[in-house]
């Protein structure tokens, strides 16, 4: 993982086209697969998690945190982030969703520090709106980078 940002540029996709939440979660999962951090099974486990547990992963307006349980489908701790060209609905009061962060972890605690950094960034006032309107990966990184040094 990049030292400066908890999410590397390769793990970002901006203005992704997705017909529904499943396609959107899979798009985020495919980035983890492409990075060699998780397998296709993990991506499908993230979809199943929403099907089984409901849309609770839409933890705040416009934003979903997609993940599944630590398992053998995870190769290393990692995170990916996508923004959507058109938002999708999960069936949550916080719909519609414009930004999806997907995470995979090998165990519950190993990724705590990087999660803390990510949490601080996405919970900044207005961060989700700025991510949603970003046109390039560089703009996304600029928003994510705002936390640096604080």
């Amino acid at each position, binding site marked *: 993982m990049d030292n400066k940002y908890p999410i590397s540029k390769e793990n970002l996709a901006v203005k992704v086209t997705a017909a529904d939440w499943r396609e959107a979660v899979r798009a985020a999962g495919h980035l983890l697969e492409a990075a060699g951090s998780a397998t296709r099974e993990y991506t499908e486990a993230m979809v199943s998690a929403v099907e089984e547990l409901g849309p609770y992963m839409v*933890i705040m307006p416009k934003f979903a*945190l997609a993940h599944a*349980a630590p398992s053998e489908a995870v190769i290393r701790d990692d995170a990916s982030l996508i923004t959507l060209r058109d938002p999708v609905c999960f069936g949550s009061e916080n719909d519609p969703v414009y930004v999806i962060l997907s995470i995979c972890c090998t*165990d*519950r605690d190993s990724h705590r520090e990087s*999660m*803390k950094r990510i949490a601080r960034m996405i919970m900044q006032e207005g961060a989700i709106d700025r991510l949603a309107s970003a046109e390039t990966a560089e703009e996304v990184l600029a928003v994510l980078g705002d936390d640096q040094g604080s």
Partner: protein
Amino acid sequence: MGEIRIQAVCGFGCGSSLLLRIKIEEVLKENNLSATVFCGDLGTCLSQQCDAIFISEELSERIMNRAKVPVIPIRNFMNKKELTEKTLNFMKDFTK
């Protein structure tokens, strides 16, 4: 009285519960309150010893009727006002 234990719960105990835990810890610190906040998952949270369970509103219904400690549903993890109110209310009630 021993240390107050707050359990932040999500589906698997490693995603949104961690964000929730970080935010609760922030609120406690800002208000000079002390409690241990730890993460739990939906499947095992009821068997973990704690004084309260903070959980997303959607998941709260699954444990609300079975929990022996207060279950505090959170609608918007980003909403500092909601988190602050609910955390402070719990701390006030608990230490009454």
